[in-house]
């Protein structure tokens, strides 16, 4: 039985202005992502995949159209409402990790929790759980500069899941990693999706990374051109490689 969509994009368009020129990035895009699905967004540079990811994650607002995540209409929220919403509902994983260099792994993971009304003990518990899930409890007092790329990305993933968000968005999470580290990160994401039933939307150029998703969506010139459902069985090996 298909799950209820957790993400709904209805007639979403987004344009930017560069001087007097208007650049149409997304055009009347419709998308539904069921809860617990691992979705890969693919497409050439400039196709609008990162823009779509930013819109779904509440980092930007569409020019027209509606974006709904769970019961929340993200596209109509104010800046401060979006900020509060992101803390509770979205976990972000970036290509270049974007950890704060002055903080330890533990402190980086704890950062989003400081915005929630949690006791110090509860925060500690959640941070340790997240670090344990990514297998980095032994490196929690290390700074990013003392960690490998793969380890830094695992800290990034721990930071993304520490608030137990509705949605995890990942922008090229393996783009800066060697093949082995990339494999480990993809394994981790699929495990999270399978064990915690997290909805994951991942932007990638890499067909091998995309093949680990349950569904692959191709974007071109701001429009959905191909929707490959069920690329792999949940939690299992890739069906197409």
């Amino acid at each position: 039985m298909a799950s209820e969509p957790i993400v709904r994009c209805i007639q979403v368009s987004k344009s930017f202005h560069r001087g007097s020129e208007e650049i149409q990035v997304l055009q009347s895009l419709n998308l539904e992502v069921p809860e617990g699905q691992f979705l890969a967004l693919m497409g050439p540079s400039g196709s609008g995949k990162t823009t779509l990811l930013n819109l779904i994650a509440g980092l930007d607002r569409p020019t027209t159209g509606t974006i709904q995540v769970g019961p929340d209409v993200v596209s109509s929220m104010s800046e401060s409402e979006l900020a509060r919403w992101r803390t509770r509902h979205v976990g972000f994983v970036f290509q270049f990790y974007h950890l704060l260099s002055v903080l330890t792994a533990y402190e980086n993971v704890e950062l989003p929790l400081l915005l929630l009304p949690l006791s110090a003990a509860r925060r500690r518990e959640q941070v340790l759980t997240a670090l344990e899930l990514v297998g980095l409890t032994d490196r929690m007092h290390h700074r990013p500069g003392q960690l490998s790329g793969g380890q830094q990305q695992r800290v990034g993933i721990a930071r993304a899941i520490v608030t137990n968000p509705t949605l995890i968005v990942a922008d090229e999470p393996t783009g800066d990693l060697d093949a082995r580290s990339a494999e480990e990160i993809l394994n981790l994401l699929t495990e999270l999706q399978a064990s915690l039933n997290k909805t994951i939307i991942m932007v990638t150029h890499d067909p091998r990374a995309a093949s680990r998703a349950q569904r692959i969506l191709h974007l071109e010139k701001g429009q959905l051109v191909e929707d490959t459902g069920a690329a792999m069985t949940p939690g299992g090996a890739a069906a197409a490689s």
Partner: protein
Amino acid sequence: MSGYPFYFLVTIGSVIGLAAAALVPFYLLLVAGDFVLNRLGDVDPFSRAAKFVGLMVKNLRRNMLRTSLAYLAIFVLVLVVVGVWSILAFLDLVTAEKSRDLKAIVTERWQIPSQMPYAYAYPLSQGAPEKEGDIVIGPDDSMTWQFYGGYTEREREKQTRDNLVFFFAMEPRKVLTMMDGIEELTPEQLRQLAQAVEIMEKDKTAVVIGADRLATLNKRVGETITVYGLNYRGIDLEMKIIGELPKGRWGQIGIMNRDYLNDAIDAYPARHRGQKHPLADRSLNLVWLRVPDTEAFKKVANQIMSSSAFTNPAVKCETAASGIGSWLDAYRDLIWGMRWLLSPAILVVMSLVVANAIGISVRERRGEMAILKVLGYQPWQIMLLILGEALVIGALSGLLSATLCQVVVNEMIGGVPFGIAFFPSFKIAAAAWWWGLSIGSITALLGSIWPAWTAQRVKVAEVFAKVG
């Protein structure tokens, strides 16, 4: 090398040395602050606030070279402002009219420098009472001053500022009752001064000289010097140095028994074919009187100024504050410049230094600001983070600068050696620590407003479009 270039280099070197030494407590405070905030981060209900402030401190430790340079710039500028404000505060204090226990100065009315006949000394010291009901000033509440200056070198070509010494010739015991600044002495200094006064009363050749002047003269307590008169040409006096006045306010002056000078003036004709010394009838420069209140002052001033005994030359009686104010008139432009040009200019420079340092830091950390926004931090929280970083550096720098300045200048140097009128140096004001704290904090906040505003306006999508 000697003279102004030498002192200038020594001053610059000392300030830089002091600032560099002050980096140590600054680093220690940052490390200690980080440690304490880390611990507090585990203690509710402070934990979240402590973590946030801890992030500010960690950000300051990120680039220690830049933080140190900003700190040093604020440190030096606060040092200068505190020095300037201390001088201005002192001058404001001495020219502020008091309503009780105030001092009056009697001087020649129409001429500066005041030169009155010594015959005025006794009646003026009593407040010139002429009829019943007039106020009579008590013996402990008056003091006469005669100025005697000279060189310790006989030959003209060897006479320089470095061997010049300037004495207040007075009744020695009045030092203990009437001199300004006596209340600032420690009990030990007071005891030593009382001992010296006792000797000076018995031995007219005994003198005390300020520590700074003694050092410049290269003389020590116990030595005998001959002073070759500068204003009293032809009156050369052999003096025994029996004590040292403390550094600072009294550091450059000497005090001698007035009888020694007056005896020498009286003896002058015998050695000069019966000719009186040109200053013989103009040897009294000032008379200080202490009165209990403004009413008494008005009455005494009226007694003196209406007396027929003081008409040639005429005298005037004014409050010390007013008298000092008149003398400071010569420095009016300098003081105005210090108050309204130098101080504000330094404060503006400080704000610009902070703005530059924080601005560079913010530009380098646009990605981090964007990350904080992505994680849900509100713009005002990011602004607070930047303002907080500036505040930490400004407050620490200002506080350490003013406190160290106070300790070093007051306790080790004996005051800011910046002579104005007859004040050879100035102590750093007791309030300097909070001046430094406030100046550092406020200028740092003002300087960081724009960088903080820029930081909170970072557009996440734009930043990641560039970096990702």
